[in-house]
């Protein structure tokens, strides 16, 4: 008994020492929002900062000299940026997003001290205290723009009630919470917290997480619900990077105060005990107070190419400097620069100039063409052109469907064996129909001196006569 007492005493001293030590330097800072909307316009980035003491109370009356801002692409050392403007007490009246993360493990159905584990008396269950705490918190939330969501968890995230301005929905969700099965009775506190942060990423405006838990993180080995594990560090880190303050409420005397307090302090929240209802009542006002006392720092952004830029804010008051980091998106349309610039790429210019020249050549200009007949047969939408040159020797050209004609159009029953005869006399071509008049330029004729470009129509087939081009014609 004596030994036990002295161990307890020692523990208490240690605890007191630990807390007094950490309290001395436990101001914390978060970037609750980065506004990059005017980056393209004027190269400015606005950073909303929340600075709180160890009790989660905002630190007021800080000045521009308390802050330093660094910016860098990911995995690079930050360069200090010039602070262009500093504002105090920024009031963002957009409403707050509050996500309640409620432990629903087996022990939540025990009594406060943990001695009575199988009672049917709901009055003594820890979950009942939690529900009461939430109900009283909901009463405090008077701003209709505030949105509240609820996650319950044990071995997995049990239920998710999305952020809503409808308080009744949350109350209903609380009533409907069911006692978990025996095999679900683990407490995946840290992984749930990590997922809760991830969930809140989508929401705009200020984000707060309130964790209500009775005990320790009690993970299931190889839990299929959380294939990737982030642990307490991962959870705190992600909350910090998202600028989310996590407030924690211990629901039993056995609650893991140390870690719940750590989560709260490192993320700028505060730890509460459910047995201290007076303080708990103050929770919502505290959250509001934090948000209403943010600082707005505007700085000019750097131009280093990066998909995401890391903003680091260093805050220094009296104690050790504290730092916080957060990313913002800074991608450009054409993306990353080449590793090095090889000026050989400029060789593409003569290449494309050459192509352009080639393109200007394909204008289908015919410098010299001998006289010819082009037979244009239309089958469906396609037109097949078949060109028959006129040799100087041939003085008479026959045209028709027969096999012995010079220009033969097969496969059209409407065309007679020989339709017309074309006589070439010193370069003057005269067409004469052999029987019925022939259609030239949409006009029936018996005989006609052909001009260049005349169209002889035979059934569905057109024959275009071309005198050809000599160098003299068309001299510019």
């Amino acid at each position, binding site marked *: 008994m004596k030994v036990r007492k002295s161990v307890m005493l020692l523990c208490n001293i240690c605890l007191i020492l630990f807390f007094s030590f950490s309290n001395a330097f436990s101001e914390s800072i978060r970037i609750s929002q980065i506004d*990059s*909307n005017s*980056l*393209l*316009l*004027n*190269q400015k980035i606005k950073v909303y900062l929340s600075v709180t003491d160890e009790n989660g109370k905002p630190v007021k009356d800080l000045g521009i000299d308390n802050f330093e801002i660094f910016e860098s692409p990911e995995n690079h050392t930050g360069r200090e940026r010039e602070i262009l403007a500093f504002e105090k007490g920024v009031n963002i009246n957009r409403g707050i997003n509050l996500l309640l993360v409620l432990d629903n493990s087996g022990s939540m159905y025990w009594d406060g001290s943990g001695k009575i584990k199988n009672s049917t008396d709901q009055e003594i269950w820890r979950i009942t205290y939690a529900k009461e705490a939430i109900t009283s918190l909901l009463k405090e939330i008077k701003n209709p723009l505030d949105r509240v969501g609820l996650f319950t968890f044990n071995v997995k995230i049990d239920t998710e009630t999305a952020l809503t301005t409808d308080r009744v929905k949350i109350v209903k969700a609380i009533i409907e919470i069911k006692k978990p099965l025996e095999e679900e009775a683990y407490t995946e506190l840290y992984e749930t917290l990590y997922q809760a942060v*991830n969930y809140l*990423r*989508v929401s705009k405006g200020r984000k707060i997480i309130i964790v209500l838990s009775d005990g320790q993180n009690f993970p299931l080995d190889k839990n299929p619900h959380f294939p990737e594990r982030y642990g307490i560090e991962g959870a705190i880190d992600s909350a910090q990077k998202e600028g989310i303050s996590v407030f924690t409420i211990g629901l039993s005397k056995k609650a893991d105060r140390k870690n719940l307090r750590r989560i709260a302090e490192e993320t700028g929240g505060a730890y509460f005990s459910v047995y201290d209802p007076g303080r708990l009542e103050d929770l919502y006002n505290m959250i509001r107070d934090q948000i209403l006392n943010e600082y707005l720092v505007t700085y000019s952004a750097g*131009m*280093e*190419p990066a*998909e*995401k830029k890391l903003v680091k804010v260093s805050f220094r008051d009296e104690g050790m400097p504290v730092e916080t980091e957060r*990313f*913002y*998106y*800074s*991608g*450009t*349309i*054409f*993306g*990353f*620069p*080449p590793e090095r*610039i*090889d000026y050989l*790429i400029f060789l*593409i*210019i003569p290449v*494309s*100039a050459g*192509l*352009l020249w080639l*393109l*200007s050549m394909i*204008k*289908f*200009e*015919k410098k010299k*063409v001998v006289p010819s007949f082009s037979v244009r047969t239309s089958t469906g939408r396609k037109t097949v*052109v078949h060109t028959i040159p006129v040799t100087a020797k041939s003085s008479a050209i026959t045209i028709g469907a027969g096999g012995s004609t010079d220009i033969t159009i097969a496969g059209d029953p409407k065309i007679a064996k020989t339709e017309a005869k074309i006589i070439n006399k010193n370069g003057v071509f005269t067409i004469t129909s052999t029987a019925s008049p022939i259609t*030239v*330029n*949409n*006009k029936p004729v018996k005989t006609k001196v052909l*001009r*260049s*470009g*005349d*169209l002889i129509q035979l059934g569905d087939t057109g024959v*275009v006569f*071309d*005198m050809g*081009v000599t160098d003299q*014609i*068309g001299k*510019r």
Partner: protein
Amino acid sequence: MSLLMRIVFFGLAGIIGGMLAWPFAEVIIYYQADFPTLLIFNAALGITVGLFMGICFGMSEGLIAVSKEKIKAGIIMGIITGIIGGLAGFVAGQAALLYIGTTFFNSNYSFQKIGIPVSRAIGWAIFGICIGVAHGLRNMSLAKVRNGIIGGFVGGILGGLAVEYMRIYSPENMFARLVGLIIMGFLIGMFYGLIENRLAKASMQLLNGRYKGKEFPITGRVTNIGRSGKTEIGINGYTNVADVHTLIKKEGNDFILTDAGSKPGTFVNDDRAERVRLKNGDIIRVGEAQFQFRKK
């Protein structure tokens, strides 16, 4: 040159525009950190790419028409519209990218992986749209602007996605942006040609001479035919053609040919014509040049 060839021709001109713009774009991107602001950086990139694409698109019509005047006018208009389109497009595209990118960036971690390449492709698309619109505006034609939008959007999205996925699968590849620019240029040009083809309710095809087989779409309300390079259907290289010889007016669904008082006159189906309503298949003679009129 048939109408199909014109489409291909415009597409090729777009490709060359992309090729010319690429090395300059690479150099600008390489020196990103030396630019004072993101706005100036984007403006520089937009102007550069828009300029080269504008020149090539502007030139293409003049090249097809084989008219020095049209090439010159096209280049000047191409430079102006290209710079404006490129500047507006790149800045708007960057603004959209920052907005959408930030939204994706602040979403679930799993969503980020798809979201970021997609938002960059959207940035490309907006740039493409502006280049396409500028290309269409040169012609003061609403339908061409509309097709510029379609071509620019499709080209931009495909070009942008090509760049993103090339980067994922071969990060060392230095030609990713070249491929993206080529795809974008080609599609803007092609869609521009396509609309020209679709808009043309009629066309004129040369049946003889130097440019035998060349097809001219009749798109506007008034189409001038003559030797001058400024006419819509410029026929250089044919004798007895006046500067402005004949004009075709579109009246509802009809096309009315009117001789512009030329000495040699205009003939439709071998009859001298002052004012004639054209039918499909009519043979039109302008000086020594003979066309076939086609109505769709």
